């Protein structure tokens, strides 16, 4: 391998072919959040600081519960991919891998916990 030129080593390997998927994923989730965020802000907002009974009754209704569930799931998946870019910009090697994996865990855990809680209230 040491006696092969860089040009020779690269020939035939082609491009990575999957580089745009991450970008397109962020585009899709950002458009979804463009609709979900205002809906969530103006449904969740009035409930913040409201008494327990009112909050519980509100989130047994389908619309606020579905909006909150979708916003948390799509939002945390958008965060997962966004924070990956942040980590990759400033770290490398094992630190990079460890942080990306940790943030994937946090994102899925938060989305799952949010879904579980909303389902338990709504059902």
């Amino acid at each position, binding site marked *: 391998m*040491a006696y092969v030129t*860089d040009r020779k*080593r690269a020939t035939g390997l082609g491009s990575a072919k999957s580089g745009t998927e991450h970008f397109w994923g962020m*585009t899709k989730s*950002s*458009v979804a*959040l*463009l609709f979900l*965020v205002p809906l969530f*802000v*103006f449904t*969740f*907002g*009035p409930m*913040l*600081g409201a008494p*327990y009974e009112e*909050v*519980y009754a509100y*989130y047994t209704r389908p619309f606020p519960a579905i909006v*909150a569930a979708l916003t*948390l799931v799509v*939002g*945390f998946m958008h*965060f997962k991919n*966004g*924070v990956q870019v*942040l980590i990759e*910009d*400033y770290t*490398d*090697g*094992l630190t*990079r891998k460890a942080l990306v994996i940790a943030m994937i865990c*946090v994102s899925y855990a*938060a989305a799952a*916990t*949010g879904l*579980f*809680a*909303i389902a*338990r*209230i709504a059902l």
Partner: protein
Amino acid sequence: MADVNPDDRPLSPHLTIYRPQMTSISSIFTRITGNALLIAGLLIVWWFLAASTSPEYFDLANSVITSWFGDLVMVLSLWALWYHTLAGVRHLIWDTGRGLDVDTAEKMGWAAFGGSAVLTIITVLVI
């Protein structure tokens, strides 16, 4: 070039070598707001989990999130959310190939800062 281990590639210089400009500041704020929203996101998930568990647990989460410090975090996060949303719209416009000249990019940057401040005030007044 002999070593092709992607982990050991040098990072390009950033932050430290550029003079701050309107476009660079609006860009870094997009990143900061987006990633800082993790805190509000986790607080909201905790609030939902507490509400689904018991009235006592809800009162605990609710009192933390609506304390003066909790209010501060949530209002700053609300601004961060609106700023990141408007900055996201700016990126979606750029992605179509429009508004990439410096003048338009700076105008849209100011619109994101101004618009997010206005939206935050409106939201606080409405809810």
